[in-house]
């Protein structure tokens, strides 16, 4: 429905899967180290990692905690849209730097978003200067994140 599928997960072979598993454990594992574990050459490991990344199946990243970007206030936001295509509203929201994730939904809300802000002052600014300029939002329900017990996303949508 969204992107064209240039390659599918089935194209990934057993060695690829083993490389991915090692990198999920430690994204800094060197090609040499992976090669030794799997009985391949370092060049072969490098080529596989590059192929998987190019096919948009794999991304080796450094993930920074919300603390690093100075965000202490996280909000889980549900949005209902009226008189506008929810897709356009979601795109406008996605353009805001404070919006960390944003998805079109089937269910209670049309859009679910996760918003990361430094503090309550920033929330005022976000509501008055960013959200107020997006038309079509008929309901904005923000729940404050009190505590995160589990956060293990390693299979994620690759968006722009």
């Amino acid at each position, binding site marked *: 429905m*969204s992107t064209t599928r240039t390659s599918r*997960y089935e194209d990934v072979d057993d060695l690829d899967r083993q490389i*991915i598993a090692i990198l*999920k*454990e*430690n*994204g*800094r*594992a*060197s090609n*040499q*180290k992976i090669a*030794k574990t799997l009985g391949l050459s370092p060049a072969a490991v490098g080529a596989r990692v590059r192929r998987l990344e190019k096919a*948009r*199946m*794999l*991304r*080796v*990243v*450094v*993930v*920074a*905690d*919300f*603390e*690093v970007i*100075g*965000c*202490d206030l996280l909000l*889980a936001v549900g949005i209902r849209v009226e008189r506008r295509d929810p897709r356009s509203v*979601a*795109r406008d929201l*996605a353009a805001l730097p404070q*919006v*960390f*994730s*944003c*998805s*079109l*939904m*089937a*269910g209670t809300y049309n859009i679910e978003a996760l918003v990361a802000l*430094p503090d309550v002052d920033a929330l005022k600014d976000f509501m008055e200067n960013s959200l107020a300029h997006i038309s079509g939002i008929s309901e904005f*329900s923000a*729940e*404050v*994140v*009190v*505590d*995160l*017990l*589990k*956060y*293990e*996303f390693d*299979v*994620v*949508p*690759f*968006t722009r």
Partner: protein
Amino acid sequence: MSKTQLDQLDREIIDRLAIDARISNRALADMLGVTEGTIRARLKRLSAARLIRFTALTNLSRLGTMRIVFIRVHADLRRVRTVAEQIAKIEDVKCVIITTGRHNILAMGPFSDFDHGVETVIARIGKIDGVIGLETSITIQAIKYNVRTAKILSPQSNGSEEEEGEEES
């Protein structure tokens, strides 16, 4: 507001790694004009402090028809934490958040359209003592997902190790 002490060098290291997370410590050191040992020590400290984590992400949309399902749970206020802890034990649920609001727990996870995984999980959550009600929403399309920022809940034990140096014997 934040109590974290990150200096200029920490930020430069994180910025460089954001461009290429697999760059070697030596190349990083050369770029930033410091020693390899400094880079190694910084990465070790940042990982231990749960400020960064090196990982590999795989693309949800390459996994056939997986969708992120949002489950909002209304739990008895006196039992929110124990309910959330029970939900966190379910393997398919990848994210559990306690929030304000009538629904005081938000649970999320990727589920396939073609099995009964999500129904099983919902039934299991519904049976937890203290759960009053729940609401489920399914992602139609992810418009934005910032892969660079997350909540890091446990330090990565081997995350800062870049073994290339030691391998050369």
